């Protein structure tokens, strides 16, 4: 503030120069600030563009369906698979990803797919079914017989980054040439020549907006639109606009037009699928047309260009009218620009939108299985990498078996017990490869909730008994299936002084029974007697060797399954039994490919022999018997006998948990049925879980007949009463397998007493062979 009133001209002049000076320095500071800010923005731009520009979610695939002549498969199962992989019916089945069905024959045109080990070329195939199998497989064009064709696998999940963006990366050269051309014609006419901003377009837009009195046109270049997408939100402030303009100029300075265009093609927001944001043309082509971007037709390409102006307003599924109008506007524009001729334009405008029904696959159809996949992958991958590295994960899920298992569980839970809200869990595995083919986590399989297949810890009851008897039968000098065991009452004093006296399910003691009967009828008292005779540590050792990882305290109650476990644990145990003593860790993932389709990891098949096949064979024969004459007979009687199913019921005290576990020739399966709050269900293993199990197994086990027994096994008819060799005078006799040298030598009284008859023995053997 001046102290004196100034009056002279000289100071005024100097004051002006001060003003200029300060203005100048202010400018300088401003410029410096601006330069600094520009440098900062430059960093941001480069960072966004260069660094990890796009996080690409990982995609999870089911197993690919292998087709070959004589493969057991029904037309219905094939149809299920085709629908799940998103193939559409068409009049001739000859365009990619379509099929035609006429009763038992199909024509399918597959699409090229990069599997883990090789690329399966797309082709048209014709299939003929007969007698529950694929009778013939031919090339639909040449008619040549084909030996083996793999379909594309179903995509069963997307492991998203936190922002829920999804995309399929494309390169510029993958786009149909008309796409970038149409894009420029409609969105940014001077893209090829401007430096990030297009002042003519801005002026034109401003004029148009002014005349209309509202925003009707945007003057943003593609570069600006791309920059806009770098931000997570879409605020419209002046600062933001200036920032975007500046960043657009910087982007153009650093990168070529092609790079910018490619980035745009991958970044642009094109739609919404629930919480999943559809970004880029690559994914949009799949999302709207179920095909890769390379195969888009002219009207489809025009539609994508139309949609990007406002993916909600121009959503072709919700507002086909809006979409059609704008698509045709796009077609008009590119015709006027000479990019297409009149005929093309007319044909394109006449075409329907061609949008496929929204694929209901992808994320979330099988959340329970996906959970198992994530658990296996988390041993080897960080969550962050799974979410952003664009991995392709090939799993073991068999959608046909998964769907069959889900339906079986729901059907039985709803039909028989609608008054109570029963729950259930199912795991199905493949014998041999130990691949997990289906996981059902509850009666609402689409709901990502509590996973009863993996996470319940419920007492498994008699499901552990095969381990007990395997321990016994592994000592053939002491135990055979014909050994008489005591089913008398048990009283065990426990460490706390109380007395534990388990009883049989029917509350009766059966005296001396054959071991095979004790197992097939699941007698508790006999099991405890045998267990104590063998030693609990031995039994626990067998449980571990069968594949139960959990710590097990060697309490007597373990024999009767007091142990809390999940269906997946039981699946591992019964897998080892079904594989005749070869332990193979269950797998849900086969292979992982990186974003460049390079194999990253192969989860190779492992196996380890833990038991001699002959001992396991004895146990399995008893489990087959259990299903036909023992605890499982109510349902087992109705199962086709040539399926050779074997299994064990599990029922816990007060009928809270109902279990069934077992296997056929091809698959093992475990079913649990119970209440989430552990309330009484009133169900036994046979009345709750077994019908579900049988329903599934009937549909999926296809190999008929008994597998040949391992070496060193002989079959001998024994008297049901004494366990000694039977003869024609014995009323009830069992044909039982024995490890060579362990079969009873003596004859039962009904077969002529204790006298050894070498001749008779010979003839009995001949008869046995002929039987």
């Amino acid at each position, binding site marked *: 503030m001046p102290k004196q009133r100034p009056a002279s001209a000289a100071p005024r002049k100097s004051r002006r120069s001060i003003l200029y000076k300060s203005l100048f320095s202010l400018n300088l500071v401003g410029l410096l600030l601006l330069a600094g800010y520009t440098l900062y923005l430059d960093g941001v731009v480069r960072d966004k563009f260069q660094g990890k520009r796009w996080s690409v979610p990982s995609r999870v695939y089911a197993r690919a369906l292998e087709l070959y002549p004589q493969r057991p498969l029904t037309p219905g199962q094939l149809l299920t698979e085709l629908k799940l992989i998103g193939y559409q019916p068409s009049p001739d089945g000859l365009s990619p990803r379509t099929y035609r069905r006429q009763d038992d024959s199909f024509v399918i045109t597959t699409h090229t797919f990069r599997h883990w080990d090789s690329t399966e070329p797309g082709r048209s195939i014709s299939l003929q079914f007969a007698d529950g199998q694929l009778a013939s497989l031919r090339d639909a064009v040449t008619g040549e017989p084909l030996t083996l064709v793999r379909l594309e696998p179903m995509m069963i999940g997307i492991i998203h980054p936190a922002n829920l963006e999804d995309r399929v990366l494309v390169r510029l050269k993958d786009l149909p040439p008309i796409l970038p051309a149409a894009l420029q014609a409609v969105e940014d006419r001077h893209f090829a020549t401007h430096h990030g901003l297009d002042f003519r377009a801005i002026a034109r837009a401003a004029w148009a907006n002014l005349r209309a009195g509202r925003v009707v046109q945007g003057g943003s270049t593609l570069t600006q639109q791309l920059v806009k997408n770098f931000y997570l939100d879409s605020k419209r402030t002046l600062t933001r606009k200036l920032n975007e303009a500046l960043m657009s100029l910087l982007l153009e300075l650093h990168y070529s037009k092609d790079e910018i265009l490619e980035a745009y093609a991958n970044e642009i927001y094109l739609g919404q699928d629930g919480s999943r944001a559809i970004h880029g043309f690559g994914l949009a082509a799949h999302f709207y047309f179920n095909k890769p971007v390379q195969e888009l037709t002219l009207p489809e390409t025009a539609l994508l260009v139309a949609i990007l102006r406002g993916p909600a307003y121009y959503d072709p599924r919700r507002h086909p009218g809006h979409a059609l109008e704008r698509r045709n506007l796009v077609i008009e524009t590119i015709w006027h620009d000479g990019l297409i001729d009149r005929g093309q334009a007319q044909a394109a405008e006449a075409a329907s939108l061609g949008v496929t029904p929204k694929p209901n696959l992808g994320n979330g159809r099988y959340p329970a299985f996906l959970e198992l996949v994530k658990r296996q992958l988390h041993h080897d991958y960080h969550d962050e990498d799974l979410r952003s590295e664009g991995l392709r994960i090939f799993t073991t899920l068999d959608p046909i078996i998964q769907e069959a298992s889900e339906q079986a569980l729901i059907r039985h839970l709803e039909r028989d017990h609608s008054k109570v809200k029963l729950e259930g869990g199912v795991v199905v595995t*493949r014998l041999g490869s130990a691949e997990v083919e289906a996981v059902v986590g509850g009666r609402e399989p689409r709901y990502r909730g509590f996973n009863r297949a993996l996470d319940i810890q419920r007492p498994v009851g008699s499901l552990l008994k095969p381990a007990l008897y395997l321990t016994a039968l592994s000592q053939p000098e002491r135990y055979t299936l014909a050994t008489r065991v005591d089913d008398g009452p048990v009283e065990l004093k426990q460490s706390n002084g109380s007395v534990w006296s388990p009883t049989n399910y029917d509350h009766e003691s059966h005296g001396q029974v054959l071991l095979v009967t004790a197992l097939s009828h699941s007698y508790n008292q006999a099991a405890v007697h045998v267990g104590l005779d063998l030693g609990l540590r031995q039994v626990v050792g067998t449980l571990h060797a069968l594949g139960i990882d959990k710590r097990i305290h060697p309490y007597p109650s373990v024999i009767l399954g007091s142990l809390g476990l999940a269906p997946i644990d039981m699946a591992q145990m019964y897998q080892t039994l079904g594989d005749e003593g070869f332990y193979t860790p269950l797998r849900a993932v086969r292979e992982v490919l990186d974003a460049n389709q390079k194999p990253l990891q*192969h989860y190779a*098949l492992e*196996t380890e*022999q833990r038991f001699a096949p002959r001992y396991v064979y004895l146990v399995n024969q008893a489990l087959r018997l259990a299903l036909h004459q023992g605890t499982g007979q109510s349902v087992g009687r109705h199962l086709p006998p040539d399926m050779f199913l074997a299994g064990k019921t599990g029922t816990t005290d007060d009928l809270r948990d109902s279990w069934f576990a077992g296997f056929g020739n091809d698959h093992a399966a475990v079913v649990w049925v119970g209440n989430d709050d552990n309330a009484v269900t009133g169900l036994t293993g046979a009345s709750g879980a077994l019908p579900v199990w049988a329903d599934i197994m009937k549909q999926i086990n296809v190999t008929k007949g008994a597998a040949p027994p391992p070496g060193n096994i002989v079959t001998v008819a024994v008297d049901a009463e004494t366990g000694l060799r039977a003869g024609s005078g014995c009323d009830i006799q069992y044909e039982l397998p024995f490890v060579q040298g362990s079969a009873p030598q003596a004859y039962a009284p009904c077969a002529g007493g204790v006298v050894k008859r070498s001749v008779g023995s010979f003839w009995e053997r001949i008869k046995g062979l002929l039987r």
Partner: protein
Amino acid sequence: MKRIWLLAVIAVLLNACSFQPPKEGEPVGPAEILLAQAQEKQAAGESEQALALVERALRLEPRKAEGWLALARLHYEGGDLRRAKQFARRALQFAGADKRLVRESRALLERIRAE
């Protein structure tokens, strides 16, 4: 060889349209074809690919002793004796009455034991 030849004859009988009988030793079923491809890959030094093909064959036919034996051989050649032994045992389990396969599985187990 005899077995494969027999299979080939059956395949011809079943499929009247295929007038060209496969030559002796030529693979007929999908699993055989995959195993033959695996052998080619192995010969070309692509053992990872070979492994994948054998596993694929075993998925089609889990009880195919040839497949398990092929896995055992792949691991044996790769120097993984532990796996080689386990897979050879599995081959033996499924070899059943096939004398050639029993003999070959036993021979491999013998070689593994000797190392």
